[in-house]
């Protein structure tokens, strides 16, 4: 199994990015490129579904942080769903759950993204 694989699908106006594996300093560039590719294509509302993400280090957090202002300036946002306990602990410990909208599952996140657009 690869250290990290990334799938992307579009659900309405929301680009759903699914990282599978772990994100650390070794794999972060792939994750970063996945996010940057969406932004370059003008997909500014991004949901990162973390159901298959087993681990994220500060390198991965930095990749998200590096784009949050850009997507919000364009009226979009980065949302998170399906965080495993240890991944949630990282976001929560750093207070990032105040910066990002975190949802239990993808459907909730998509509904919230849809409401925001209305």
């Amino acid at each position: 199994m690869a250290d990290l694989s990334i799938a992307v699908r579009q659900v309405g106006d929301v680009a759903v990015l699914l990282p599978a594996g772990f994100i650390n300093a070794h794999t972060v560039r792939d994750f970063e490129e996945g996010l940057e590719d969406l932004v370059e294509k003008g997909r500014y509302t991004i949901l990162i579904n973390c159901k298959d993400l087993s681990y994220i280090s500060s390198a991965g957090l930095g990749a998200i942080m590096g784009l949050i202002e850009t997507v919000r300036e364009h009226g979009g946002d980065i949302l998170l769903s399906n965080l495993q306990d240890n991944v949630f602990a990282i976001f929560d410990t750093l207070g990032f759950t105040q910066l990002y909208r975190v949802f239990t599952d993808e459907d909730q996140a998509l509904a919230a993204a849809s409401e925001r657009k209305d």
Partner: protein
Amino acid sequence: MDQSQFRLVIPSQTRYLNLVTGLAKRASLVAGLDDATAAKVSIAVDEAVTNVIIHAYGGEGEHSVELELRFTAEALEIHIWHSGRGIRGDQMVLPDPKEYIKHPRKGGLGLLLMSRFMDEVQFKADEVSGRNECCLIKKIS
């Protein structure tokens, strides 16, 4: 004091990070820590070794990073040695999470995670050997 320990030396390459974090997690469980705490210890070790590879060695992959895991009744200690650029304890400036959230940017979070997830984080320099050490301690409660 009853103590057991073992050492691991890896090349200064990020491809070995997952091996080290996996080891740190398993070692934490062996030491008696619970799953959630073991995950936090493994993240702290990831951050410490990443700092060595990226910052102390400037991303050069031909160096080595030495880890020693010490198990005592009171704590799990993880000592990380390298010969690259060191950091002193008084140079360890932790970002303020509230300010970080107001002004998002890349970088600066590794030390914060290490300090939040471990009970002690120490940086030392050995002037005789010229090596630098980062010591992470998690107490067994």
